[in-house]
């Protein structure tokens, strides 16, 4: 990740194919593991851990959306709705059947995958802009159905309370417990995505993104793979929804409205389309942005405005900054934070010796 390699000096196939090209790569991964599994959870305060948990949830969702948008090239503005499908599936199962969380998580993911594949069906005939609008319709229709069918939404204000997940006899009640719980799934999601992209399926996705007609000509069944991309991506989204429900302790459709779909699209645009590391950067960036704005407005906003207006202005300021950032990244650095990171890395490749 941060090692620098100078020249290709490998003499065996084993060395060429090895997971860690240099010993320092292994140490980096080890150091990151220590940082995320020990240092952060054991030193940070509950509030900061809850922020970290939000980031982890966003990372899973952003990875899923990047599989669809970044790797397969199919735009979706309906991911918020897929998350709500997962969330309500899990909440209903947990409350009606009292099923344990692994079952709910899997069922939520699979249900979202099924619905996502259905929403993805138009992708065979239409693409680009038309597909974006079709998924937008999917978002609005799913939202409406959840809101109006009491069997799903459970009546009052369409919200269902869900008990905290249990690990054996232990209830995961504190933010620290949730941190480890979520981190486990983040690691699975990251490793899963990286492997998926290197597999036959991932290569088919990338071929479809680059030129779908050409992909069809070389023998890729594009209908199958487009639906598969929608299903896998929605599976991630469903998992995100379930995890978010467990994190909040309540399933509510207002947490999954169109604004959420747009937030996730912004994550992968800002982070970098078609990159795992970019999804992570983007998720961190977009999740932290409103929190940083709120903190800084609370500290410094009083200089320019009165106390009451500051509170009213924060959401508007957040929206404006959010929009400006999306546009700036699109115009100036289309490959996102991932590209910036690579630029920094290649600058330090032979540092401090130039050539």
């Amino acid at each position, binding site marked *: 990740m941060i090692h620098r390699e100078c020249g290709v000096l490998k003499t065996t196939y084993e060395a060429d194919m090895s997971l860690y090209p240099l010993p320092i790569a292994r140490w980096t991964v080890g150091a990151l593991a220590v940082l995320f599994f020990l240092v952060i959870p054991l030193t940070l305060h509950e509030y900061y851990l809850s922020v970290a948990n939000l980031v982890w949830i966003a990372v899973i969702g952003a990875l899923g959306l990047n599989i669809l948008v970044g790797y397969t090239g199919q735009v979706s503005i309906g991911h918020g709705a897929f998350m709500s499908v997962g969330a309500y599936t899990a909440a209903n199962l947990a409350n009606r059947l009292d099923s344990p969380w692994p079952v709910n998580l899997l069922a939520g993911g699979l249900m979202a995958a099924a619905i996502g594949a259905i929403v993805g069906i*138009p992708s065979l*005939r239409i693409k680009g802009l038309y597909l974006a609008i079709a998924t*937008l*319709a999917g978002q609005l229709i799913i939202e*409406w159905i959840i809101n*109006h069918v009491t069997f799903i939404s459970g009546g009052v204000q369409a919200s269902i309370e869900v008990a905290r997940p249990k690990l054996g006899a232990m209830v995961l009640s504190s933010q620290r417990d949730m941190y480890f719980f979520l981190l486990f799934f983040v690691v699975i999601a990251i490793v899963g995505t990286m492997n998926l992209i290197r597999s036959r399926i991932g290569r088919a996705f990338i071929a479809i993104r680059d030129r779908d007609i050409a992909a069809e000509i070389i023998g890729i069944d594009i209908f199958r793979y487009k639906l598969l991309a929608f299903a896998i991506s929605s599976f991630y989204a469903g998992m995100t929804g379930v995890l978010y429900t467990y994190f909040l302790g309540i399933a509510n459709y207002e947490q999954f409205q169109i604004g959420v779909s747009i937030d996730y699209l912004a994550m992968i645009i800002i982070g970098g*389309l078609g990159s795992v590391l970019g999804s992570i950067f983007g998720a961190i960036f977009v999740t932290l942005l409103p929190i940083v704005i709120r903190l800084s407005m609370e500290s410094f906003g009083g200089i320019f405005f009165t106390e009451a207006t500051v509170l009213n202005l924060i959401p508007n300021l957040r929206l*404006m900054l*959010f929009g400006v950032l999306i*546009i700036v990244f699109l115009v100036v650095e289309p490959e996102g934070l991932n590209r910036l990171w690579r630029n920094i890395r290649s600058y330090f490749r032979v540092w401090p010796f130039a050539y």
Partner: protein
Amino acid sequence: MSDEFGFFLLLLSNGVMIGLMYSLIALGFVLVYKATDAINFAQGEFVMIAGFVAAGGLMVWGAPLWLAAGGALVGMIAFGFLLERVMLRKLIGRPVIAVVMATIGLAAILRGFGPFVIFQGTKPLPLPLPDEPFILGPLFIPPIQALGAGLSLAFLAGFGWFFLKSRKGIAMRAVADNQQVAMAMGIHVERYFGVAWAMAGIVSALGGVLWGNMLGVDTNLALVGFKVFPVVILGGLDSIPGAIIGGLIVGIVENIAAGYVDPYVGGGTKDFAPYVLMIMALMFRPYGIFGKKIIERI
């Protein structure tokens, strides 16, 4: 005439009026798409910000109506040109997602800008119109809707003439058809891109004043923009007659669906029915009623 049929006629006439007002907003979208191939996901926010300027001028700064509405109009035209120059020119030739996301980002900026800079909360936008609806047999037609429908028709006809007959309109069609050939014919392509965005600004300013009067001006005014997509998909993305027909279909369908279905499901059909219709249209006729079919070659 039975009450049942009168109720149906009322829904129908209301749908036609509202539908024409949707057509007006959809026209802004179509004009931009036709000339520049860019998709404006911020059309609803354009309408909203025009409403904010007009209502802010009228209620906050105390300007007379003609000045407030004129200010909105001039402001939106300038905004259209500026936008094309600063943002969209840099995104020419980039994938669909880039333009979609850029306009979504623009929508976020406008949504924040209105309340942040102009005013917070909801402000009315009164127009000097009579309050009582015109009564024609079973029909009640509110004056604002009559005015809106009339203005929409006038503008649609005006833009139709502009594209078919005027020199500039023909140049714009050439730009839409093939940018390179248009350039070779000596047409200043970028200037026409700016003109298209400014035209979207004009119809948005008009839409902002009309819809702002009907709904009141706050950020929820932007939700009108969600109606644009069913309208343009049904009619065809690059067709002005399509915008009229699509607007009429959406207006009528949503009113009739709301009138007959709402009592059973507890509301919200108005926002839902046009999208169901749109999905069906996408399945069977993806390029709409009048849209240009795209043939892809490798």
